[in-house]
């Protein structure tokens, strides 16, 4: 069914645009087609598969219970006690680790809990105050984690609770201390993830107990310990060698990202300080603020447009200059190729952060190299007029009257700062493409040029029809990678301009200025997010998180589109 839907929809999209005949229409048609086939159908199929799988799962269980009742009993053994089915199968080497895992989980839960006090305290307090939050007061790591994840804490500093005042942190009586939403959220995520792992092991143990018994009945042979170890080592080698990396990525990348993701659905900002206030699940409130308030939308629009423009320009200019350099150095007219190459490669060899901060000094207001040179040449005013003519320097640039050009700091000179960022990025970035394209030029066979020579092609024709296509074909994927890299190129902005200059004060709406959350004129999305979350006077964690999710969606789409073109990614060898 899905296939036919896909075909029809695809043809509708294509036909509509084919009749129009506009090339832009075709492009949109293609994007629409892509969105439809990859996203809508993908999501639909995803849910369909899940429902199908759940259905199959229960069907299989009933079939198993009916056809192989003995094996089913083994599975049932593991269902009630992890590892019991394995023990009945006489596979102690499986039963012990599985059972041990369960034991460790239970031990953690019990050792971090205070259930033993519960009975005494309940009888003391319950008649008077009532037990308000059982898991909060007595729960162990897992139960309290889940409680914390869903409630994000209930009690703050100074609340009266069960006849006592809540204090900041009390090692002896946990229920006396104030809740800390961030810790509760973090521990909640870890607890839930660990419980999921336990759950998966549980399912696995049930399946394994059933399948092993079935196999023993069929073949009459039980796998010994040695053979089992050997089989696992050989068959699951691919898994075993990625486990350490997976664990690292899981704890140091995935869970932190998940935490940041979830923060978008709370009202956590820097104003909510430790113990005194709690933050709550507000679900889509922050999204609503971002998308319904004109002020925020306008800032987001400005930043997004500049981010896209910056990413596009910085990839294209760098590529073009790299191409020019490579062609000039490789041309026959130039000798001492290695000499030129080594000098022109320098910007690539100097670490990026250092050269960016060096340029911050070069364009410093007082004593920067650029201003010094202009002052010594007596050309400051001329350059200023020229920049004014280009529209890069504002007309009301009062500070500029003092003499120096304020390259990166004056609110009136936003255009100048933006231009400088692209130029500095060009300085930093062209050598990489120069080297890349030099390499490609070396692989173009000389015979092609000779053949063209015989056919009477001119130099420009040779360039257009031989050099360019070969270079483009080899480097096209790199351009796209550069684009996505620049989209998130935090350092290029932060170390050079720090996001500045800021907007003129009268252009910042009151509601944004109160929070101090306005971006600078050269901030791209990622550096704005950094400012939102880590500048100590701002700390709008939930807003930052919402914008990260938007970036994620944008880049994710670009990446999937890029990948769908790369066949080699999908095909197996």
């Amino acid at each position, binding site marked *: 069914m899905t296939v036919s839907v896909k075909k029809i929809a695809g043809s509708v999209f294509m036909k509509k645009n084919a009749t129009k005949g506009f090339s832009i229409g075709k492009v949109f048609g293609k994007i629409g087609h892509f969105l439809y086939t990859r996203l809508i159908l993908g999501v639909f199929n995803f849910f369909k598969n899940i429902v199908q799988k759940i259905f199959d799962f229960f069907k299989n269980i009933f079939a198993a219970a009916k056809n192989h009742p003995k094996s089913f009993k083994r599975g049932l053994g593991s269902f009630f006690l992890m590892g019991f089915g394995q023990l009945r199968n006489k596979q102690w080497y499986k039963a012990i680790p599985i059972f041990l895992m369960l034991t460790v989980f239970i031990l953690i839960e019990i050792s971090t809990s205070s259930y033993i006090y519960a009975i005494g305290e309940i009888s003391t307090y319950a008649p008077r105050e009532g037990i308000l939050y059982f898991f909060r007061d007595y729960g162990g790591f897992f139960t309290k984690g889940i409680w914390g994840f869903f409630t994000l804490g209930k009690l703050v500093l100074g609340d009266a609770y069960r006849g006592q005042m809540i204090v900041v942190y009390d090692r002896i009586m946990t229920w006396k201390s104030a809740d800390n939403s*961030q810790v509760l959220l973090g521990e909640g995520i870890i607890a839930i993830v660990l419980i999921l792992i336990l759950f998966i092991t549980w399912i696995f143990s049930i399946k394994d107990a059933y399948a092993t018994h079935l196999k023993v009945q069929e073949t009459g042979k039980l796998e010994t310990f040695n053979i089992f170890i050997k089989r696992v*080592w050989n068959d699951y*080698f691919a898994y075993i*060698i990625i486990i*350490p*990396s997976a664990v*690292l*990525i899981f704890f*140091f*990348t*995935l*869970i*932190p990202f998940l*935490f*940041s993701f979830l*923060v978008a659905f709370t009202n956590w900002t820097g104003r909510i300080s430790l113990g005194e206030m709690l933050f709550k699940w507000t679900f889509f409130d922050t999204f609503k603020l971002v998308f319904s308030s004109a002020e925020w939308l306008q800032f987001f629009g400005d930043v997004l447009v500049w981010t896209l423009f910056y990413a596009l320009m910085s990839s294209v200019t760098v590529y073009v200059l790299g191409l020019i350099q490579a062609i*000039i150095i490789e041309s*026959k*007219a*130039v*000798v*001492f190729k*290695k*000499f*030129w190459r080594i000098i*022109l*490669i*320098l910007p*690539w*060899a*100097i*670490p*990026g*952060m250092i*050269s960016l*901060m*060096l*340029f911050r*000094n*070069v364009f410093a207001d*007082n*004593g*920067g190299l650029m201003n010094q040179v202009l002052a010594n040449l007596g050309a400051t005013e001329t350059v200023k007029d020229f920049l004014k003519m280009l529209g890069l320097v504002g007309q009301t640039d009062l500070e500029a009257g003092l003499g120096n050009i304020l390259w990166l700091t004056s609110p009136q000179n936003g255009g100048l700062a933006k231009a400088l960022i692209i130029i500095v990025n060009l300085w930093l970035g062209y050598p990489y493409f120069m*080297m*890349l394209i030099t*390499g490609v030029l070396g692989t173009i066979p000389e015979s092609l040029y000779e053949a063209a020579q015989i056919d009477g092609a001119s130099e420009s024709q040779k360039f257009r029809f031989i050099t360019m296509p070969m270079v483009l074909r080899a480097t096209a994927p*790199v351009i796209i990678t550069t684009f*996505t890299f620049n989209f998130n190129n935090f350092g290029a902005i932060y*170390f050079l301009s720090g996001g500045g200059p800021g907007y003129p004060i009268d252009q910042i709406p009151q509601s944004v200025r109160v929070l101090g959350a306005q971006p600078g004129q050269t901030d791209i999305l*990622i550096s704005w*997010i*950094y400012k939102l979350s880590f500048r100590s006077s701002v700390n709008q964690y939930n807003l930052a998180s919402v914008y*990260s999710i938007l*970036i994620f969606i944008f*880049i994710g789409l670009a*990446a999937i589109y890029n*990948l769908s073109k790369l066949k*080699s*990614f999908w095909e197996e*060898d």
Partner: protein
Amino acid sequence: MKQKINLLAKVIICIISGGLFYIYWLYSISRRANILTTSRGLIEARKHAKWDFILILFVPFYGAIWYYNTEKRFGQILNQKQIVKPDHSLLYLIVMLVFVPFLSLFAFLDVTIALFVVYAVSVVSGLITACFIDYDMHHHYLSILPVLEFGIFLREDRPAHFVRRLTVRKVVVGLLSYAWLILMCVIVLTPVIWMVSASFTRGTQLAEVPIIPNISEWTLANYIDLFTKTSSSEAGAIPDYVKAFLTTLIIATSSMILVVIMSSLVGFSFSRYRFKGKKQVLLTMLGLQMFPSFMGMLALFMFFRQFELLNKPLALTLIYVAGSIPYNTFVVRGFMRNIPKSLDEAAFIDGASNLQTLIHIIIPLAVPIMGFIAVNAFMGPWLDYILPSVIMPQRDTVAVWLFRYMDPLSATYSPIKFMTGALFLAVPIMIVQVFMQRYLVYGLTSGAEKG
């Protein structure tokens, strides 16, 4: 009269030391050129030569010592063609010992003139040498000394591709090309030279740095500061910069080792095996590699505070490793997919286990890409600012140290100090990058090509 003789003596010493300087320079390079041209078929020797190249260029005698060692091992092949006979090494040793007076020149002559003369002499010697050199054997490596290439260009019997017919068009195009290249060189070099000049300038403010470097007024005060100043009041405390440097070195080295081991394992797994969930994991990694690690920093900070790992290099190392595995996995996977599977199959038939195949067959072939990863993983931590500033608030890494001097709002604002520290850090990195560029660029593209 006496003054004149004095000056003459100085100039003669200059000329001699310039000549010696040149000979030493040429000697180290010709050693390498010799090895590479005579042992073309011998992969082993070339592999050694690759890594020793930088040492030969910059460490006195290293060429001679290395040459002896290599000759012992691969003697019969090396002896086929030789320009510099090995028994001349002792002579060069003596030459180098005499070379020391060249340095003492700094004491009694204007440094600017001394350097100028020394380099002028070595350039002239280069031109003279070029007249007698066997071009065909050396041309590939002689371009390291542009002087030699130019000398060969001037020769009557220059190789064929130096000879060409000049037309007006070619002259114009040539002139334009050179003008463009010189312009680009000026743009590239000006800030760099300004930075060098700033690091040798007395003072703390940018305005005190002259536009045109004045070598005679240079001072080492900033560098001495760099290696002596300490903020703690204890006696014998390690200077701040050195401390930051060592901290970063620990982080960089440990994360390099971990990243190389882990990402080659993961890359191997993804390039060789089919298993359930492979595509999902690959897609996840692809998504992860696009985001800077600081997006999860809130949680990381809390996590490390909970386990009291703040201000410990271990915490930072683990984040770097976790953050760089996804990208490196793609690079390694792309490389390993090009290693033919028939090798694995042959090993399997001979009874090798998975682990043996990995260690004895795949790893030796994947050394270039692992080198690339190692260099990248080692470089990364040196200039990361965001993570260390949050995760290690009380222990500086080099980048945090540098950034402190660039913050106009802080009390320690001093751009010249920044320039000194940054230059000291950048020079070794630059040398490595320039001489390894071919491998680094190769690594960058090999991952991208195959997706």
